[in-house]
């Protein structure tokens, strides 16, 4: 069954979109990740214009992260104070990101920047995860205990704040900076940014793992909401019809994924996710370097 997307201005098969939402939802339930970094490239692959894919995916992430954060709130796994500090950086970063997005779109370079960002981040994250999961599999045999976190120059910065829930006394500049970087990524790549923020919170801030996911989700809700509004205002690229279909597929898929995931070992899951991430990354990377079918492309109308 075909459905016409009012903002993307194209006709797509509704079951294909539901399937994509379901598939990525399954993976995000399985691996406990947001899934934006998989969904947005998949939307490119089926021909959704990249500005629409990025803005719409931000809208979908609002839904998935609200549903996630509610579960973490009930278990008390959210550091609200830390979330707000991260958010200050996040709102600044995402506002800057959408401005940058609009400028790059005008220059005709947005497609390239989005795809390059994906190739860079997916290759780094994918390889790190792969290495880490292989090590964890070896460690399981050797039983080596590792240190929680290290003290370094980052802990000497000013504006120190106490975060009781995270049992930390650190400079507020650090979480603001992390939030800022993640905000830019959210705006340009159409992701929540959990895949960058979670490692940063654990390794740079030294937050306890138990509160990391809930707190990052809290930040992601507001950052992606900010991106949604700014993209809607500046570029009119948020397709609510597409977002809604993705949300429905995602919710159903995540249910199955979470059930399935509880039966698998953590490091095996991460290893599998790493392979998927590297697969998507190589496809995007190949498309950037392969000789295009047509060197010329239409950049859309001006002032129609």
């Amino acid at each position: 069954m075909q459905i016409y997307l009012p903002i993307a201005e194209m006709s797509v098969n509704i079951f294909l979109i539901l399937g994509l939402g379901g598939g990525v939802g399954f993976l995000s339930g399985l691996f406990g990740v947001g899934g934006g970094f998989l969904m947005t490239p998949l939307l490119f692959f089926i021909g959704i214009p990249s500005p629409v894919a990025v803005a719409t995916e931000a809208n979908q992430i609002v839904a998935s992260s609200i549903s996630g954060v509610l579960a973490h709130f009930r278990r008390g796994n959210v550091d609200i104070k830390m979330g707000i500090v991260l958010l200050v950086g996040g709102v600044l970063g995402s506002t800057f990101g959408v401005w940058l997005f609009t400028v790059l779109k005008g220059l005709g370079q947005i497609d390239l920047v989005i795809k390059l960002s994906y190739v860079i981040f997916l290759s780094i994250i994918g390889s790190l995860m792969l290495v880490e999961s292989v090590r964890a599999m070896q460690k399981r045999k050797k039983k080596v205990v590792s240190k929680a976190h290290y003290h370094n120059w980052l802990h000497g910065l000013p504006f120190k704040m106490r975060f009781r829930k995270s049992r930390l006394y650190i400079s507020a500049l650090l979480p603001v900076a992390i939030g800022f970087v993640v905000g830019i990524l959210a705006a340009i790549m159409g992701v929540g940014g959990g895949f960058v923020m979670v490692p940063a919170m654990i390794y740079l801030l030294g937050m306890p793992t138990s509160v990391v996911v809930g707190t990052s989700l809290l930040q992601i809700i507001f950052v992606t909401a900010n991106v949604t509004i700014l993209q809607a205002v500046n570029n009119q690229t948020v397709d609510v019809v597409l977002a809604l279909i993705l949300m429905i597929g995602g919710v159903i898929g995540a249910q199955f994924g979470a059930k399935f995931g509880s039966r698998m070992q953590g490091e095996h899951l991460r290893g599998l996710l790493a392979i998927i991430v590297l697969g998507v990354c190589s496809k995007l990377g190949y498309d950037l370097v392969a000789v295009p079918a047509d060197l010329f492309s239409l950049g859309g109308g001006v002032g129609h």
Partner: protein
Amino acid sequence: MKKILCFIALFLLIDAIADAGAARASEITVDLSEPIVKITTGFSGTDLLIFGVAPGEGDVVIVVRGPIRDEIVRKKEQVMGVWVNRRQVVLENVPSLYMMASNRDLNEFLPGGIAYTHQIGVENIRMTPAKAYADVEDWETFRHALVRNKENQNLYHWKPGNLVFLGNRLFRTKVHFPANLTVGTFGIDTYLIKKGEIAAYKTTLLNVRKFGVEAGIYNFAHRHSFAYGVLAILVAGLAGWMANAAFRKS
């Protein structure tokens, strides 16, 4: 249902042939299977039937033009192994859609002068670069690239012989509008060519519009974009909350 309507329409037209002789000889009667193309939720492209009666003998060529706008054409070049958009040319007066129908190859009956004046044939569309270019050959490659891209998007199309005569005067053609249409007013020009001259001519207008939910969402997103963004977030919030409630039960 459509077929019945077409049949009735054709019947009325055959009836009109008799009157046509009595009426002004230079007038072509042209009508469309639908006066308006509606883009609704289920829209995946549509076929439009154009039919009419020629006032005399000759060849018929029909040109369908979408709304005109300026179009950016970009060229990729390799920079450190990656293909990057490097140069761009803005072409003015580009029809968003350009379809032709004729009963035989244009070379067989249409003099070049008429084709040029009336912009019949893709090579005669007067799209011009927004800035003056010294290197004519260079911007011509951009112009060809635009036409090629539009053809790949099924927005520019022509095949000789896609218009058929039923008897001497009655003609009919089917034009396919793809789903990636631009909305606006489309012009349909019908020419009757006889002995290398335009014997009769008629312009028909066709409206392409978004309808219902599609129109509502599109207009809302463009006219009240802030409210649209807020609404998109509310929808997402509701969906997320409902998903969570469903999760908790299971």
